[in-house]
């Protein structure tokens, strides 16, 4: 912070004619600032209500009786808190099976993404080789391809391989890296000094060893970010399971919820209970691991 005296000096140098030596100028200025801060705070508080009210509405609706859901006008607070709605919802469809299925897919996708992308990104960041820049340009260019352009021929490929109605199409591609994660991890690897790698090489360490013993431990925060984004992506994935899974025993939570929607029509209390249960793990992870989400965003924008 600069003191008012210093400010005066700057202003005189800049040659403005503003009468800032008059103390009332600063007082007026300070009040204006306080006023703006108050408006800022009020806007943020009002906005938070808009952000949070849908989530409150989901919880509130999930606890109502069907009669109360249908009553007009709708109520903001449930007359009675029917927690049993959650048990009924869980038992109305094979949600336990869906959860296990989703966890299997999600775990494999997270492992695949972390291992492959960390490995690939090390190559792009820390090993100088011919053709590296060209290859990395292609990595970035693939981000521009609309998903459906590859989705349809990929389906043909997986269908010919007999992979429809298996988890392979959802899991196997995760082990071959993805542009966004490679980009994210490469950004992070760039912050590791090359001298460290060179020193290890002088000691006779191979790149595999350096990746395992130096690369992986030093990029832990970025790996956590990739793991969380991957978890989120796989947990929320709807398109993949919709396309490849026809057998009800293989359904994931997202597909289960969609089927549930078709069966229940407008029984909003159960539908909201189901939705909240499916969203809950993501909400919990968000509150525990916020800093990794934010780190991912910062890496994305090219900051540190």
């Amino acid at each position, binding site marked *: 912070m600069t003191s008012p005296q210093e400010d005066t000096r700057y202003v005189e140098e800049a040659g403005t004619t503003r009468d800032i030596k008059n103390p009332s100028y600063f007082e007026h200025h300070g009040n204006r600032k306080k006023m703006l801060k108050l408006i800022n705070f009020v806007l943020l508080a009002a906005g938070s209500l808009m952000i949070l009210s849908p989530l409150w509405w989901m919880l509130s609706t999930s606890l109502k009786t069907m009669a109360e859901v249908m009553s007009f006008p709708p109520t903001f607070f449930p007359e009675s808190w029917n927690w049993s709605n959650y048990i009924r919802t869980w038992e109305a469809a094979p949600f336990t099976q869906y959860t296990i299925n989703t966890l299997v897919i999600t775990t494999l996708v997270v492992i695949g993404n972390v291992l492959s992308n960390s490995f690939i990104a090390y190559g792009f960041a820390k090993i100088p*080789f011919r053709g590296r820049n060209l*290859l990395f340009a292609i990595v970035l260019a693939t981000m521009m391809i609309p998903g459906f352009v590859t989705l349809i021929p990929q389906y043909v490929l997986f269908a010919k391989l007999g992979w429809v109605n298996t988890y392979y199409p959802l899991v196997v591609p995760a082990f*071959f890296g993805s542009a966004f994660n490679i980009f994210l991890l490469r950004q992070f690897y760039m912050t590791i000094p090359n001298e460290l790698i060179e020193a290890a090489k002088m000691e006779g360490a191979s*790149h595999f060893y350096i990746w395992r013993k130096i690369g992986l431990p030093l990029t832990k925060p970025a790996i956590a970010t990739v793991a969380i984004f991957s978890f989120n992506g796989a947990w929320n994935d709807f398109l993949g399971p919709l396309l490849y899974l026809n057998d009800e025993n293989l359904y994931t939570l997202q597909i289960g919820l969609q089927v549930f929607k078709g069966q229940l029509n407008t029984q909003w209390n159960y539908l909201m209970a*189901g939705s909240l249960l*499916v969203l809950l793990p993501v909400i919990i992870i968000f509150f525990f691991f916020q800093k990794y989400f934010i780190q991912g*965003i910062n890496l994305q*924008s090219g900051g540190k």
Partner: protein
Amino acid sequence: MAKTKSAMRRKETMYGYIFVMPWIVGFLAFTAGPLLFSLFASFTNYNITSQMDFVGAENYQGLFTEDGLFWTSLWNTLYYVLFSVPLTTIGAIFLSALLNQDVPGIRVFRTLYYLPAVLSGVGVYLLWMQLLDPGTGMINLILGWFGIDGPNWLFDPAWTKPSLIFMKLWSVGGAMLLYLASMQGVSKTLYEAAEIDGANTFRQFFHITLPMITPVIFFDVVTSLIGGFQIFQEAYVMSSNGEGGPANSLLFYNLYMWRQAFENFNMGYAMAMSWILFIIVFILTMINLKLAPRWVHYEGGDNR
């Protein structure tokens, strides 16, 4: 000595390719191969099981001249992109400007506003179907408090697309964080200098903050444009039976492509559609890149 050096370099190149090999294999198998196949198949009447005869440009011609639904879906998608991209961009910038101030509880505010951005999938779509329900939903209840007779949202063809745009605005926090990170990187001395020159908060925002974050605005516009053209899941889940109704008002480009590919098994036709989308997205991205130097401000020497 020169010999050992080139031997070293060769060894590095070998290692480099070993590390990026998973990506190369994945790229060939899941991206490049499918792309080539799709380009070829878009000139055939491929239906995945029995036929694959070369039909020339018939698919493309049919789309442009005989298929009304193609134009409907393209129009719906353009409508969505045209409104959602500017609104979410402006919303995110405005929000991050509010969240870049030093007011009480700012960390809590930032967390709250970001939360909806990590929530996605069927659970969120079901929540918004309930919120927007004309009789039992929260939105029309609140509008009613202000004497506004809310529309029928997802049941009125004129309001279905605005419904999805509102839902999108709820999760504007993702882009907000991107802008916030960039705003926090703007040098404090710029603001101090402007303050002394007597520039008020609004002038400071438009003459310092906004120009300094143009690289992030550019990144956000490019990615959300590409993303906007690919809207699919929302429309699939939130229209009854995934048909894109009422009155085809939610029949987005990808939804129509999905129906052609996986319901009618007109694979060749659908792949032709996907290439038209690719070309549209490509041209728009190129236009963006061409226009960028006119308004994107890069700090000299800082190659972020």
